[in-house]
């Protein structure tokens, strides 16, 4: 059964058909939620809510785009709502995050080099959390999830040109925020 049939059957209330679609897209939706929240439990909850939302909105899916694009759009919007609410509640200064992570001794990586790499990754991912939602989303879609420019344009319902400029601003902003970390580590001088 192809995806169109699965969608049609799901619209008619066939839960098993919808189950096949869930199994196909759950990992990507979960990863998207995880990259935006950095919290496995929250990402799982969000992914479940995304599929619930999609199931009850199936009659609005006209098939103009791919089902995958449609579900990612729901996921992005749902995660944005979640982040907006969460950001209202907690706002941790970036300096605290970088200082805290840099001071941590990660015992899971005995090799010094690996430990440093892991720490760097952690700092970068945590710093993304401090960016405005629209930049966080675009970095997640392009640089973490590896979606193409045209896919991102469809998911976010913006032009590929806007994807390019927004991504450029997001990367620039992220680098600016990471400057204290790079100077602290003495990185970025020569590769």
């Amino acid at each position: 059964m192809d995806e169109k049939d699965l969608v049609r059957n799901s619209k008619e209330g066939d839960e098993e058909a919808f189950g096949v679609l869930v199994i196909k897209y759950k990992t990507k939706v979960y990863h998207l939620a995880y990259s935006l929240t950095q919290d496995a439990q929250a990402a799982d909850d969000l992914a479940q809510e995304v599929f619930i939302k999609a199931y009850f909105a199936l009659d609005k899916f006209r098939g103009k785009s791919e089902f995958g694009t449609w579900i990612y759009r729901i996921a992005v919007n749902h995660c944005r709502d979640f982040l907006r609410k969460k950001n209202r509640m907690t706002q941790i200064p970036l300096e605290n995050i970088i200082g805290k992570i840099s001071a941590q001794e990660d015992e899971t990586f005995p090799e010094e080099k690996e430990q440093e790499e892991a720490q760097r990754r952690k700092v970068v991912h945590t710093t993304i959390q401090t960016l405005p939602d629209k930049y966080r989303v675009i970095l997640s879609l392009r640089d973490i999830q590896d979606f193409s420019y045209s896919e991102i344009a469809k998911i976010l319902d913006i032009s590929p040109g806007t994807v390019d400029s927004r991504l450029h601003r997001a990367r620039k902003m992220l680098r600016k925020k990471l400057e204290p970390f790079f100077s602290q580590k003495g990185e970025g001088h020569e590769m």
Partner: protein
Amino acid sequence: MKCKQSEKYLLRSLENRLNPSVKIQLKSHLDDCPQCRKRQSEYQIILRSLKEESFPETLPYFWERLQPRLKEKRKIDPWFVGKQFGLRAIPLSILVVVLFTAAVFLFIPSPKEELDLSQTGVFLLQNSNPLEETQTLLSEEGDGNKHIMLLFSSLDETNDIGRNLP
């Protein structure tokens, strides 16, 4: 090439989205500008860190945990069940209407048109007996009754209050 422009191009170059001539210009700028070289190296670190993100596995029984939530939500939202039923009901109701209309045209005879006929026409074409009423009166037993009824039946014009005119 200025530093601001080079930042834009070096981000594109990291994704191999730069045409060869700009690539050469960027390279010569980077050779001369330590600040932009530093930036390039920082961007490389950032992009590598993002691409290397390790994702945890999805929590087990994702679909099994989702199913009861869907059922529960459906109970709360009876409109959704209605909508699902409605989707199937639309073609069915169209079919019923079409069949009903076809049945009306095929099986129910159209009512006869009322013809605008003169009294003679009515007698001749609708096979009515013009003397039927008179015959009924004449078959009455009492002579007095016959005369009075014949007299009244000849007066078929009535006034406003329904009485026969003299």
